[in-house]
């Protein structure tokens, strides 16, 4: 299993429980669509999955490692090694080049850097190959600010994919794109996740995107907490 949530419960002190999930799992290479309208506790869930926050009870485990057994430093390291994240918008550091943005995770994870070097020979070659696969080969040295939003999201995807992390989490990455580029981006992302042998968790409030994925699940069904 790439990711398993068991009986997790989370809420801020003296506030109603936000997250109450009995069971949720993603298997290796699986592409899951998670329907999460706003207010459904989506951000909190993502913080729990990425180990930034700890559940009050229950267990989050990824790749057989239980987060509860790790301290925050180890969880941060685990995230750096095994998780690729894509946000809604403004994913990139505007003052770094496209290439430097893509290579950021390698700066924080020896494992991912090693994988890139083992496969491509050097970090730069890895970044180039990945950007080419995403159709951005010519934009390596372009300033981030001069990229279109669609291009920026593809650079973000390249950054999430570099070093082949086991799980890619995409949080509404297409909400700033128009319908055409949306479909293309999702196809590209799932194609590349397959190539990297990564599982994909795609979170969106747009149910029409669900058809692109192996499995679709609604956070509102999954989560017993936060209903008010």
């Amino acid at each position: 299993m790439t990711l398993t949530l068991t009986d997790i419960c989370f809420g801020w002190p003296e506030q109603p429980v936000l997250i109450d999930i009995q069971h949720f799992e993603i298997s290796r290479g699986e592409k899951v669509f998670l329907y999460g309208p706003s207010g459904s506790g989506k951000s909190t869930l993502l913080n729990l999955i990425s180990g930034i926050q700890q559940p009050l009870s229950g267990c989050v485990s990824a790749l057989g490692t239980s987060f509860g057994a790790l301290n925050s430093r180890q969880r941060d390291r685990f995230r750096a090694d095994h998780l690729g994240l894509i946000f809604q918008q403004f994913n990139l550091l505007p003052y770094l080049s496209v290439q430097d943005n893509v290579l950021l995770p390698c700066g924080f994870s020896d494992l991912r850097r090693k994988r890139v070097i083992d496969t491509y020979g050097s970090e730069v070659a890895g970044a180039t190959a990945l950007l080419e696969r995403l159709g951005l080969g010519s934009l390596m040295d372009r300033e981030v600010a001069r990229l279109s939003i669609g291009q920026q999201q593809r650079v973000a995807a390249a950054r999430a994919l570099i070093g082949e992390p086991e799980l890619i989490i995409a949080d509404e990455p297409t909400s700033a794109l128009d319908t055409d580029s949306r479909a293309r981006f999702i196809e590209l992302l799932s194609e590349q996740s397959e190539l990297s042998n990564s599982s994909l968790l795609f979170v969106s409030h747009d149910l029409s995107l669900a058809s692109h994925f192996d499995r679709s699940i609604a956070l509102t069904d999954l989560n017993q907490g936060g209903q008010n």
Partner: protein
Amino acid sequence: MLLLRIAAKSLINRRTSVLLTIISIAVSVALLLGVEKIRDQAKQSFTNTISGTDLIVGARSGSVQLLLYSVFRIGNASNNITWQSYQDIAGHSKVAWTIPISLGDSHRGYRVVGTNTDYFKHYKYGRKQPLVFAQGLAFSALHDVVLGAEVAAKLGYRMGDELVVAHGTGNASFAKHEDQPFRVTGILAPTGTPVDRALYVSLEAIEAIHIDWQAGTYLPGSGGSEPLETRNLQPQAITAIMVGLKSKVATFQLQRAVNNYRKEPLLAILPGVALQELWSMLNVAENAMLVISACVVLSGLFGMLTVLLSGLNERRREMAILRSVGARPAHIYCLLVMETCLLVSMGILLGTGLLFVALAAGLSFLETEFGLYLQLTWLSLHELGLLGIIFIAGLCTGLIPGYRAYRYSLADGMTIRI
């Protein structure tokens, strides 16, 4: 290294506010160093004013007062020394040489010093450097005058020029000894000491120009009609004596002898001790300057803190992105502290550069306008220490935004709240 690169690029990205911050730190650093440098060099040129002289003897007053009027030519003597006392001291068995000094007249704001040619022979400054003539020679005729370097330069006198000495020491004296003009026969090389700011004539000349003066007023004919050449122009009194001894060991012995002199109340001081005493009086002003420039540095650092803290909120997204790619809160903390270090280092480098450029440009101005002789020396250990303190203070300042960013990144996680 990655963090350092990110920090540098992030700073370059915010170059306007960053540049302003660096400049404000640089200016405060330059100011602090400048004050230190001037203080240091002023002290040095101050203590270099006189050397080789073992004792200064004057009428009994305060030691600082005696030093001020005899060496620095500031203020006036309260009383004179009789010629007889001068002869007694000069004839003492332990005394190697003496320089008599007679003050009281001036020329366009510069003091006129009545002395003898021993002044040019025995007066030493700095590291026992003797006085050197840039042009001409010591006075020999009665109405010869030797000019200090600054007097000649500022007033534009050349060899052979004639000038008139004014009675009293005011800047705009109306009572002038116009009946007896002096001719420039020598100009001293610059020394960076009060020597440059005086005119030198013989004791006899001082006596001669005062012949027709009674109690501070010019009464022509009151001194008699005898021609100058046949008069006895030996003065009745002088203002002070500089004394060189045959052996330093005798210094205190002679000092005691002078202080206990029976025929009139005299005071003998050790120039080094009196200089130290005077400098410690100036210490208050000196320290006040240092405190003010330290405050300027502090305000520069506060300015930097303001810029960093106010920019932090806009940078929460940047931190969330870094968190998402695996940066730990500790990394974020380091990033912010590194940014501060870079800012402060740049400020210090720029400030030091600024100071040297300003000094190089203003050196001759300071020299001609204020008689302040600065040397372009490399930073002293003390100044490097000050820079170190500034750096550490900056580093400590950086801990504050660092901590704030750390808290943010713990609380925000990877959700971007703007």
